[in-house]
């Protein structure tokens, strides 16, 4: 894998003594083509990460100042009640969002995999929310969940007078509204991942098990689902990635409210760094977010690389 993919044809045992400038340029062409991207990545990914890391150790407020104050911003962050709420929300939101998406995704994929007529149309319907921006999703669900005119009123008008569904304005429940909207948006995608995985399961093995008299639920539990482990794994990584980066949905659906009861770290970071003139604190929160992503990602990449080497 690490060798040159295409060794240049040998023209004889003796190498040409001097390459012309043009030949040398041609030999370097692949590197030259890649160079701009490498430079941009070095600066705009790694350089900026370091830059933000440095900022998080300074007392920067509205403008960056390079007065280093050690880890004071981090201790300030840990003592910040609002940050505490946003991290707690992320754990609730992320945990439920991932769990429900995985369960729904697997279930729908299995149901769709029963040689269903109109499978294509159903798949299209389950997946279309993924094409929509989280801002649109948030706007739509803000309208549906609004207690005054939305679902609550609709169901009351149908005769269930005492029906109450006011999660959107209830500080204790508002984070579950985020879960509902996010699951609506992303579960179809998880379904598509699992459906692709199901189609890849070895049919011979299933036939053999059927001949041995195993029931379908048993086959799913013992053979099919275990073979989908990699899909579970990558779905988990993608969903947790979506959860940690969640910003648009909160901005559109709740704006972080009521109060700051539905804040997530991404909102906290944006507000402190860009609207409240707390650049140092915002940078520190961004670094903590990066740490969270790495904590999930590094084991994933490690196991991916290892399985590739073994395979």
């Amino acid at each position, binding site marked *: 894998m690490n060798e040159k993919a295409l060794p*240049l044809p040998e023209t004889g045992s003796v190498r040409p003594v001097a390459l012309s400038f043009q030949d040398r340029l041609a030999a370097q062409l692949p590197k030259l083509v890649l160079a701009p991207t490498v430079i941009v*990545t070095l600066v705009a990914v790694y*350089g*900026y990460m370091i830059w933000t890391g440095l900022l998080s150790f300074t007392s920067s407020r509205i403008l960056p100042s390079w007065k280093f104050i050690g880890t004071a911003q981090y201790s300030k962050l840990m003592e910040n009640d609002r940050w505490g709420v946003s991290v707690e929300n992320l754990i609730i939101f992320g945990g439920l969002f991932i769990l429900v998406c995985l369960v729904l995704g697997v279930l729908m994929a299995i149901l769709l995999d029963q040689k269903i007529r109109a499978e294509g149309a159903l798949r299209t319907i389950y997946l279309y929310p993924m*094409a929509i*921006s989280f801002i649109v999703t948030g706007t739509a669900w803000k309208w549906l969940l609004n207690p005054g005119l939305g679902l609550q009123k609709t169901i009351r008008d149908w005769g269930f007078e005492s029906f109450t569904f006011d999660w959107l304005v209830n500080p204790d429940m508002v984070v579950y509204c985020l879960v509902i909207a996010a699951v609506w948006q992303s579960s179809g995608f998880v379904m598509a991942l699992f459906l692709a995985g199901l189609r890849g399961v070895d049919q011979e093995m299933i036939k053999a098990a059927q001949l041995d008299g195993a029931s379908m639920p048993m086959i799913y539990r013992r053979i099919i689902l275990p073979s989908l482990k990699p899909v579970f794994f990558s779905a988990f990584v993608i969903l947790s990635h979506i959860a940690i*980066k969640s910003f648009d949905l909160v901005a559109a659906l709740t704006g972080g409210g009521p109060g700051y009861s539905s804040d997530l770290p991404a909102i906290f970071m944006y507000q402190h760094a860009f609207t409240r003139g707390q650049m140092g604190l915002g940078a520190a929160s961004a670094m903590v977010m*990066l740490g*969270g*992503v790495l904590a999930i990602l590094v084991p994933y990449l490690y196991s991916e690389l290892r399985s590739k080497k073994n395979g």
Partner: protein
Amino acid sequence: MVKPQKTLNQQLLRYGLYVLLGVAALVYLLPLWVMLLTSLKDVEEIRNGTLLSLPGTINFDAWSKAWSGACTGSTCDGIAPFFANSFRIVIPAVLISTLVGSLNGYVLSLWKFRGSEILFGAMLVGCFIPFQVILLPMARMLAMLGLANTVTGLVLVHITYGIAFTTLFFRNFYVGLPKELISAARLDGAGFFFIFRRVVLPLSTPIIVVCVIWQFTQIWNDFLFGVVFSGAQTQPVTVALNNLVNTSFGGKEYNVDMAAALIAALPTLLVYVLAGKYFVRGLTAGAVKG
């Protein structure tokens, strides 16, 4: 082989399955349906009816107000100008990031050199970092370059952080091309760009479609970069929509909100309906292989 006769039990199970799948489909369609109904009602009908009650007369007043008259923060020209902004951002960003991605992918698959795998891995990190970690430096950098609050600045940001994905798409596609094709061309003395243009590009149509759709959806739907790096005049449509919904003078006009949301969603929905197959392929390729 004789088709086994289905028992009554199995048939009931089959019906149950269809009912379940149908109900699920309705649940997924419900928000879109309610948005559409709401956007066609007037404020009075919204107040007196339920989410699912049909509008008495279909009127597009809310749509025209959302398009050209609703207030989005500082101005009251509807979301039309911002809809145009989104296209001015999306088109160059998609074209350039796709072009650069295809060249990168070509190098990283068919012209590998010592260390190119490591460079590829290093690039991929760009797919995964939470963007919060680059926002502050990027804002400073754009200000230094005089590109703060400009469309050009946003285009550059989207290209910068889109390249990792486009490179991944093309690299994974080109790795699957038969090596003999390229080595034969090289033996004939064909150069780097000649092979790219004449041999590789003509084979790339499917992956170009996947990549363009992916980038289009990502950039059109972006909100974070839009809200951080754009100015009042250069906002993309997602930012304008959010401002429109959260601008509150006087009574809330939910019909206008819903019409604006539908307008903002229309381009990506259209792409999805027309090219859903490629959309899904992009999602799973970007996801599973990433």
